């Protein structure tokens, strides 16, 4: 297990390096340079040159990257070009909202996805067709569009939930919860059916295995055979799917935070991209990549927990 975790962490290093280097590399490809963009045509040539030196744009790309990386390792991600605030402060203030959103998506996917999946594995028929239709809808409608439809129906028309905005948990737990319902559902909608489909397939597969017959022969109740033994054995591929869903939910967060005006990492990253605030975007990229690594690590750890064979090697 220890080796598994160590391996995952080691193989994550190239991923983090590639993603974070990308921005520097792209910058070097860009036609104009950033200093020019930031000055928006104003300022003297001297000021421009000075800004270039400040931003180390006069140095080779690899040197620029090395400077950023060595600072990043000490926790210093630089300052935002626009607000002048420390990037790490800005990001840390935002990460909680995104994490809340993702944990919400995970909970909804696990609860609803497993329920639907097990129901359709055991009963088939109607539930199965409903899942197929739902997953088709989830596939063809963009998440941000679904989010808008949710707002139109549940916030504007029915008035059950607020349309936009975020209330911190500390201020008002109930308002916090109610405010997260629509964002979480918008991101989770099509993922639920992914989990349900995978659960159905692997449940059907496991239910056909010999030990299920042997457990029944031993006189165990059907509930225990299905909910304990079959589900536990069917869980591995479901966890894999949950991992990809969580990584995809990062993308979903970028859109949905924008729609619901949530102060998360996603909306901050979009704003940074829009304003070419490279230092801020670079920091956000790092956070997103670390999130991806953490998700994959979580998946690995659950493998070990679910499968005793992996735990020991």
């Amino acid at each position, binding site marked *: 297990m220890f080796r598994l975790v160590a391996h995952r962490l080691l193989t994550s290093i190239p991923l983090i390096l590639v993603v974070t280097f990308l921005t520097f590399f792209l910058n070097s490809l860009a036609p104009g340079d950033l200093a020019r963009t930031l000055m928006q045509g104003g300022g003297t040539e001297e000021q421009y040159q000075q800004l270039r030196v400040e931003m180390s744009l006069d140095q080779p790309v690899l040197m620029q990257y090395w400077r950023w990386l060595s600072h990043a390792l000490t926790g210093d991600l630089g300052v935002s070009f626009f607000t002048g605030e420390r990037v790490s402060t800005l990001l840390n203030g935002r990460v909680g909202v995104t994490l809340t959103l993702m944990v919400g998506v995970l909970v909804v996917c696990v609860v609803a996805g497993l329920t639907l999946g097990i129901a359709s594995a055991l009963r088939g028929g109607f539930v199965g067709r409903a899942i197929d239709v739902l997953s088709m809808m989830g596939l063809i409608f963009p998440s941000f569009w679904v989010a*808008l439809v949710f707002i139109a129906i549940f916030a504007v028309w029915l008035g059950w939930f607020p349309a936009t905005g975020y209330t911190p948990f500390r201020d008002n737990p109930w308002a916090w919860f109610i405010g997260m319902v629509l964002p979480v559902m918008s991101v989770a909608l099509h993922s639920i059916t992914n989990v349900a489909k995978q659960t159905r397939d692997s449940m059907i597969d496991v239910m056909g295995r010999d030990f299920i017959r042997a457990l029944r*022969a*031993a006189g165990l109740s059907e509930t225990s055979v299905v909910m304990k*033994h079959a589900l536990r054995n069917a869980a591995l591929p479901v966890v894999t799917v949950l991992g990809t869903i969580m990584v995809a939910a*990062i993308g979903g967060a970028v859109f949905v935070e924008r729609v619901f005006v949530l102060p998360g990492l996603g909306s901050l990253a979009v704003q940074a991209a829009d304003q070419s605030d490279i230092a801020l975007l670079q920091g956000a990229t790092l956070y997103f990549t670390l999130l991806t690594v953490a998700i994959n690590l979580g998946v690995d750890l659950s493998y070990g927990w679910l499968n005793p064979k992996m735990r020991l090697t």
Partner: protein
Amino acid sequence: MSDILLDIAPSAPVAEPSSFGKRLLRKPLALISMLWLGAVVIGASFASKLAPYDPLDQDLLGVKQYPSAAHWLGTDALGSDIFSRLLYGAWPTITGVAQAVIVAGVLGIGLGVTSGYFGGRFDRWTSQVVDLVLSLPTIVVLLSVLAVFHHDVLAAMVTVGLIGSAGMIRVVRSVTMGVRGELYIEAARISGLTDTSIMIRHVLPRILGPVLVQLSLFAAVTVLIETGISFLGLGVPPPDPSWGGMIADAAVNINDFPWLLVPSGGAAALTILAFGLLGDSARDAAAEGWARPSVAPRRAAAPLATTMPLDFDVAALLSLRGLTLTATGAPRPIVNNFSLDLKPGETLGIVGESGSGKTMTILSLIGLLPRGMHVEVGVMRLAGEIIDLRDESALREQRGHTIGMIFQEPMSALDPCFTVEHHIAEVLHRFEKLSRSQAHARVIELLAQVKIPHPEDVAKKYPHQISGGMAQRVAIARALAPKPKVLLADEPTTALDVTVQSEILELLRSLSLSRGMAVILVTHDWGVVADICDRAAVLYRGDLLECADVVELFHDPKHPYTQALLKSNPHSAPVGAPLPTIQETLARMSGGAA
């Protein structure tokens, strides 16, 4: 002569082999999808001629109108004609999809075929890069690209194509590797064709199907991404029309004019759906190339016998009458009118060739027939209770504490996720109220009873950590836990080493004697029958031929088949001579009789 010819003529018309393209075009969904996509492309290309209004024309007196004859899809918040904006807005989407698909397609096919065909170091390097790219968070990379290349949809879509090519490479590579191994590729190489021409002429046509599937599904995703970045305001700069931008407009006006969501989202969703359906149809069309039509006629349920003489042996622990099993689609019953009586403490062997129905017989006693197998008729009297074998819930009631079972493959009879102790304790808790420590003591006691050395250690182990013989002992301990009166054993030693076999049989025998537990043992091994059975029943193609005391059966078999089966016992064959088989023994005997 003509009769014979008629006979060998195919009874059903065989589908003519047709090309992938033809099969695809024959699918209505594929056709409809292509029509929609064609309409979008034409609409986008000739927007300036087809659109009734200029997309940027504003009419502040006619804002937020619902569909009418003048404005087919209504007007937006600035009074612009929505239909015209949709037509113009299709252009960035269509070109964006084309850019991404071309990049992904060219790179994916080129690198995928090359690395799948040649393998080696190039393949390893490609695979590593592919793995890395596949783990990139797409949207994060896109944000970086758009931060540097402001509103540059081309740069964004090329990036999407680059990231998407990784998935393409993986698919194309694995298909190519499959094709490469086939004989005709080898033949082409021997006949002197160059690698390049083999790849183009022989490999490419074969991978066309999967590539088309992947590309259309990828196209569906790119529509999502293109509308997404324009929705975020990072793609097509407003007020230029784009589908994503129109959804963003709808977001602003959601409180008083939600209709704006419908045309923009609908156009995007229909386009995504069309690509998705095209991909699905392509997959089906590719699959039809090798699939045969499956025919599974379902046999009509036979009328159930309503009256049956119930002449149970009251002295018996288990008395079975008239068991008849059928399989869906099978012409004759799997087991036909089988009856038996089993006294307490008795061990009965059921002997027969593979497929004679012996395993199905005992599975029906515990209500665990596989899907497609049915009890047509069958009643048993078990420990004083009369049970209709068609009633699965009545059988479920008896499982475990009245009638238990062990199986042929001990390893696959245990759930790999739980420890030995858990397997047994779980059954104990099901039938008795026990504390945790009481249950533990019972588990250890049971493990000791099945002669497992160091039961405390073994209890903690997982199934993959113990041997097959050990696993069978654990399975026996689990079956014994609720103290069943009858134990069914389905070839419990076939999968084990010879030395372990006799130990397990001895264990079963001694448990049966010490607990007064009756055992039904299914086997094809006469040695096993001679070792531990009191009586044996001989089953041949579902018919019970003979059921007699073992000593009597061995010395004076009544039925010719039993005689033949006994003669084909490999243990009594002379050393060095070919082993006798049941077919040749039967043939010799029937020849001798004639």
